[in-house]
């Protein structure tokens, strides 16, 4: 299957007082059409930076792309004309669902105004031209009417009660779950091929999370949209994703189809991460040590200072990505196999 998105050896530095921090250090990532990929990792592992790099919205002063490719449908977005990316890709072919539904709307405009603003520029009816709205930013009445119809239809699809009335209301009149439904609707409206969802349910209660995940998964499967879903919660990834990628200290450590990932995790970090989820019997297992500094990352494998299986090889040489089974890759010198149970 041809990949929709292929990130190759992506390296991004952030400027800090103590020198450049290697926030992404040779990351590879593939997303196939219609696939929901979970990007899992702890704070500071680089998952948000990766999501932003794909969208081309890294903070301009602070971040520097050192190398690599972000190929979307064969075109390297990092080397493509930025205006073309803005016209055709960002907010159109690739859309975004933010983590925080509370601060992503302007509090002073009705929700409908804000959604129609999006449609004025990013409606699928505009085509890929450089001037989405016509001369002087006019919004043709015909198109506006059709767009509004599409908005109402999408709001119904995300199960927002009373869509027509909802458009006249202000953001604070909605609960967090409803605002996240609005965000999902806005991400779907430009008819994207890829949605990047950055921890979209982290701020929500479990019952609301379950409702939102169900809605999101049903809609993307029905429309054949791919999703890159970042989360720090392994159980959420298990819930919604077809494939899971684990990141640690700026590198992807393991990638596998969801069932294989949870049944046969091969990277020692993945195994420790899974073990630290609180268990029913109350046993708690943490990962000793702390996440390494990205300014002076450890030589060799990024995880070796905390790894129980580390050898001289791990301390000296960075492991290359190796393929264990169909679609199951791991970046480790000594991947754990199923019989060597930790």
């Amino acid at each position, binding site marked *: 299957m041809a990949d929709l998105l292929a990130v190759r050896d992506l390296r991004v530095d952030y400027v800090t007082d103590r020198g450049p921090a290697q926030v992404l250090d040779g990351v590879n990532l593939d997303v196939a059409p219609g696939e929901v990929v979970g990007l899992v990792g702890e704070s500071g592992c680089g998952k948000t930076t990766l999501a932003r790099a794909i969208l081309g919205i890294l903070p301009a002063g602070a971040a520097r792309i050192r190398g690599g490719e972000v190929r979307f449908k064969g075109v390297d977005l990092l080397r493509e004309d930025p205006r073309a990316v803005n016209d055709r890709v960002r907010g159109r072919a690739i859309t975004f669902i933010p983590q925080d539904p509370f601060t992503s709307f302007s509090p002073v405009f009705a929700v409908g105004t804000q959604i129609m603003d999006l449609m004025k520029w990013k409606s699928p009816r505009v085509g890929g031209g450089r001037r989405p709205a016509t001369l002087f930013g006019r919004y043709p009445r015909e198109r506006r009417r059709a767009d509004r119809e599409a908005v109402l239809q999408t709001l119904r699809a995300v199960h927002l009660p009373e869509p027509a009335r909802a458009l006249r209301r202000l953001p604070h009149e909605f609960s*967090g*779950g409803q605002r996240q439904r609005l965000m999902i609707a806005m991400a779907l409206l430009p008819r994207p091929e890829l949605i990047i969802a950055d921890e979209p349910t982290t701020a929500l209660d479990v*019952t609301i999370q*379950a*409702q939102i995940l169900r809605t999101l998964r049903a809609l993307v499967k029905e429309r054949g949209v791919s999703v890159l879903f970042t989360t720090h919660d392994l159980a959420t990834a*298990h*819930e919604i994703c077809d494939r899971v990628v684990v990141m640690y200290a700026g590198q992807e450590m393991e990638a596998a189809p969801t069932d294989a990932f949870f049944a046969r995790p091969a990277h020692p970090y993945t195994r420790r991460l899974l073990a630290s*989820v*609180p268990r029913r019997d109350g046993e708690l297992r943490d990962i000793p040590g702390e996440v390494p500094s990205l300014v002076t990352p450890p030589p060799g494998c990024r995880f070796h200072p905390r790894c129980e299986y580390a050898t001289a090889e791990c301390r000296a040489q960075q492991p290359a990505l190796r393929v264990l089974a169909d679609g199951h890759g791991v970046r480790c010198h000594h991947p754990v196999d199923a019989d060597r149970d930790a």
Partner: protein
Amino acid sequence: MSAPLLEIVDLTRHFPVRDAFGRRVGWLRAVDGVSLSVTPGETVGLVGESGCGKSTLGKTVMGIYTPTAGEIRFAGREIGRLPRRARRAVAKDLQYVYQDPGASLDPRWKVGASLHEPLRIHTRLSRTEREREVRAILGAVGLPDAHLDLYPHELSGGQQRRVGLARILTLRPRLVILDEPTSGLDVSVQASVLKLFRGLQQTFALTYVFISHDLSVVQAMCGRIAVMYLGKIVEVGDTTAVFDRPRHPYTQSLLAAVPRIGGRRVTHDFALEGEPPNPRDVPSGCRFRTRCALAEERCAREEPTLREVDGRRVACHVA
């Protein structure tokens, strides 16, 4: 069973809702008749969704809010309506841990000064006695003495958190209310923080009230659990019993919503629709009936009270 350390009887805390002119137009019933007792040495979990009143309950017990009605008895003594001076003496035994205890450190004070302060205010210990106490506590939370001379910004987030906990423990409290102590933490860090809580409970003979919306954490930490919905406890009992056989329809939905690795996907069979109603406008009868699949005519008329069912107490007509 030993005498309860904390006994809450019919505790109510209502907040006035005012319009733009400051006129009262209604009441927000944040905590609406909650009874709960906590025995020494146990960990009681308080769970529920945002807005169910679990934090308000904790803060009312703590004395941050005054109760609208009801009683709070701590070690056999009513503390809900004590005059200020008398209440302050109780504050020593009762401590509240916010989401990030490290954030409450003064950035311009060295760690040592922050740890001395509670002892200066609440005890008559001499400087050397305080120093000895402070070092002992710092060791207990797993930090070296050298940290006493550092400023908060010189510590990592996890170390700041430990200092914040040490600060609470210097007064040797008997009851500690933990309000969402691990939300926002990564799982691996969460595991070490929870381990620390457990260790401290052993060392200092603490009693915990553990407020959290994370059910898997509560399951791992608490012996008993109380589930709240719209200001009321709907089910309370032994954690294992409640998790294995939830009886209240709300508890059932809440547990069904928790994603579990390796289990069935909850998105396939999760059934609870809608969101909790506004606590300004609580439904008549049972508060959960508007979302309950089992609701019958009686549920709208009569408010269910907690009754003994299957080894725990449940507030439901049909459970």
